[in-house]
C-alpha cells in the first residue's frame, strides 16, 4: 500500500469518543446519520451505542462507509468492570468470551505483547457481582468477529479501561467519569496505536493494479486478466519497482508493453500480449541475481 493504513476506532459512547477525537484531531462527519462518525488524518471513529449487536453494526457500517483496506488497524476502546484490578487500569484482550453464546476468540498479541492483558467477557446485562477475574463489558464480542472480516486479526484489538468493581458500583459510571478514565488512558492507547501502526507496515504491499492503458488497448478475458495480473506482479517483484510503490510498478509494465520502442503495434491480441510479456518477465527473472532484502524478513 502506498499510504499509511488508517486506524479505525470503535466506541460505544460519546463520552468515550471525545478524548480519542481530541487525541487524534478527529472531527464529526455530518454526512452520516445511522452512526456518529468522526474523521481525521489517518484515523476515524464510530460511536456505535451500547451492546454487541450495536458494536457489530457500527463496525460494519464504518468499514463500508470509509472503504476499509485489508491492512487497516481496528480498535474497540471502552470501559468495563473487574473484580480486583484498579480503576483506570488499561487492559488489552487476550481472550474475548461471549457470555451469551459461549463463543470465544484469542486476539493475536503480536502488537500488544508489551501491554497488560486480560480476558474480556461480553455480557448483555450489567454485572454487579464480578464472579471471575476478567473484564466485564458489552461490545467486544460484537466488534471482534465483525472487524476481523475486514483486516488481519493481528491488526484488530480490544482495549478496556476498568471503570467499576466490587468497591465502586457500576451505577457511579457516569459520562464525566468515563471521559476522565479514557483521558487518563490516552498515553497507553497512544503507545498501542504506534505499535499497531508499526505492525501494519509489515503487511504485504499491494501489487500494482492493471494499467487502464493495457485494458483499453486489448481485450482480456477474465482468465487472461488474472494471467496478466500475475505476470505484472512477477515483473514488479523482479524489477524492484515494488520498492517504488504501486504506481511505479504499473508504469513499469506500461513501459514494457506500450512505451517507446514498445512492441504494441505488433501485438494484435491479448494472447500475443500475454505470450510476449511472459517471455520478457522470464528473461528478467533469469538475469536477476539474489539480493539481500532491506528489511529483516
Amino acid at each position, binding site marked *: 500500500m502506498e499510504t499509511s493504513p488508517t486506524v479505525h476506532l470503535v466506541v460505544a459512547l460519546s463520552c468515550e469518543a471525545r478524548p480519542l477525537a481530541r487525541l487524534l484531531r478527529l472531527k464529526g462527519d455530518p454526512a452520516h446519520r445511522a452512526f456518529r462518525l468522526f474523521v481525521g488524518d489517518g484515523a476515524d471513529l464510530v460511536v456505535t451505542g451500547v451492546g454487541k449487536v450495536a458494536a457489530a453494526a457500527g463496525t460494519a457500517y464504518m468499514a463500508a462507509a470509509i472503504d476499509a483496506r485489508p491492512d487497516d488497524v481496528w480498535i474497540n476502546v471502552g470501559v468495563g468492570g473487574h473484580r480486583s484490578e484498579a480503576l483506570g487500569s488499561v487492559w488489552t484482550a487476550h481472550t474475548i468470551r461471549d457470555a451469551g453464546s459461549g463463543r470465544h476468540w*484469542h486476539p493475536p498479541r503480536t502488537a500488544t505483547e508489551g501491554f497488560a492483558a486480560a480476558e474480556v467477557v461480553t455480557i448483555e446485562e450489567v454485572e454487579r457481582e464480578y464472579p471471575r477475574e476478567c473484564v466485564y463489558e458489552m461490545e467486544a464480542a460484537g466488534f471482534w468477529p465483525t472487524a476481523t472480516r475486514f483486516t488481519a486479526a*493481528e*491488526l484488530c484489538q480490544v482495549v478496556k479501561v476498568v471503570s467499576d468493581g466490587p468497591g465502586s458500583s457500576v451505577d457511579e459510571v457516569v459520562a464525566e467519569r468515563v471521559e476522565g478514565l479514557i483521558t487518563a488512558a490516552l498515553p497507553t492507547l497512544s503507545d498501542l496505536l504506534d505499535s499497531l501502526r508499526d505492525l501494519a507496515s509489515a503487511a504485504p504491499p499491494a501489487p500494482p493494479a492493471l494499467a487502464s492503458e493495457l485494458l483499453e488497448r486489448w481485450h482480456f478475458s477474465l482468465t487472461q486478466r488474472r494471467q496478466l495480473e500475475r505476470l505484472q506482479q512477477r515483473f514488479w517483484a523482479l524489477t524492484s519497482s515494488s520498492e517504488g510503490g504501486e504506481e511505479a510498478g504499473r508504469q513499469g509494465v506500461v513501459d514494457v508493453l506500450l512505451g517507446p520502442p514498445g512492441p504494441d503495434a505488433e501485438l494484435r491480441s491479448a494472447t500475443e500480449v500475454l505470450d510476449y510479456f511472459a517471455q520478457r518477465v522470464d528473461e528478467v527473472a533469469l538475469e536477476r*541475481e539474489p539480493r*539481500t532484502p532491506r528489511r529483516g524478513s
Partner: protein
Amino acid sequence: MIGTVYIEEEVLAQPRTQRILSRLPAATQIPIQRYGEVFNVRSQSFRLQKVSPSLILAAKHSGHVLPTPEGYGLPGYRCFYFSHMLNCLYDCRYCFLQGMFRSAHYVLFVNYDDFEAAVREAVRDSDRPCFFFSGYDCDSLAFEGVSGFAASFLDFFADLPEAFLELRTKSVAIDALLSREALSNVVVAYSLSPHDLAAAYEHKTPGLESRLVAMERLARAGWKLGLRFDPLLYHRGFRDRYRQLFDEVFRRLDVEVLHSVSLGPFRLPASYFSTLTKLYPEEALLAAPMEDVEGVVSYRKDLLSELTEFCTGEILGHIPREIFHPCLSGEQGSQVAS
C-alpha cells in the same frame, strides 16, 4: 523472545510444560482448550504473526509418527517422519510452512512420551530397520533451549539401537549432542545453501560459516552428518555459487563422517505456492519461471534439469554415489539414478 504462551489445560500440570514455562518467566500465560482455537483461525496473517510469534503448548492425540511419502525415504529402511513442533524459529522465504499453516505461532507438542511410544510400536511392527525423520514441520534443534526435544529423544534412541533418527536442522544449538557420547543411530542433517542465498532468503538463520563450524564440531565428537542441499534455487549465477558451496563443504567435512547427501530443487504444492505469492507478492524468489506439474510448482523443466544435473554432477565429484539420495520427481529422479 517469546512474550505469550497459550497452554492447553490438558498439559498445564505436566512436568515438561512447567519446565518450559520456567524458562519463559516473563511470558503472559493464556489458558486454552485446544491449540486449534488459536492456530487455525481464518483471519490470521502468517506474515504479520511472524514478526513476533507466540508459543502454544499442546498435546498431540493421533498421527504421532507417519510413513514418509514415496521418494522421500532411504533405500533399505522403512521410513517415517514426525513433528513434535509446528513452525520454525527461522523465516526462510521458500519454506512450505508459510503455505501450509494459517498461523506462524510455534505449536510444541509436549507429550513426547506418546511420540516415543509410537516410534517403539513402528519399530516393533516393521520387518526392516526403521528410519525416523524429525523436524519435518519445524527445525529439530533451533528451539532446543526451550523444548529439550533433542535431549529427550537422544536418550530414547540410545536405548533403541535398531532404529535410526535424523535431526534435520539449520541450527547451531548443538549442546545437547556435544554433551553426550555420539550415537551411531543418529544423523544430524544440515540444510545448506550458498552464502548469498542464505543471506537473501533464510532470515534469522545461522550463516553458512556458523553451520559449517557446528558440523565440524559434531564430526569431531563422532556424530554422523547428513547434508541436505534443499531447496536448490535457480538464478543466473547458480553454477558458481553452488560449485563454491560444494567445494567448501566437502573440503571441510571428510566423507567418512557423512551418512548421506541429498538435494532437491525448490518445489511446493500449488496451493502453498499460491498462498506464498499472496503473503510475499514483492518476493523475487517466487517470480522465477515456474510451472505447475500435477499440482507441484517448481522451476520450468529446462531450468530444473540444468540446475539439478549440474549440482548432481558437482556433488558426485566429491562423494560416492551410495550415499547420494536426491529428492527428485519421476523423470528427473531416474536420470540421476542412472
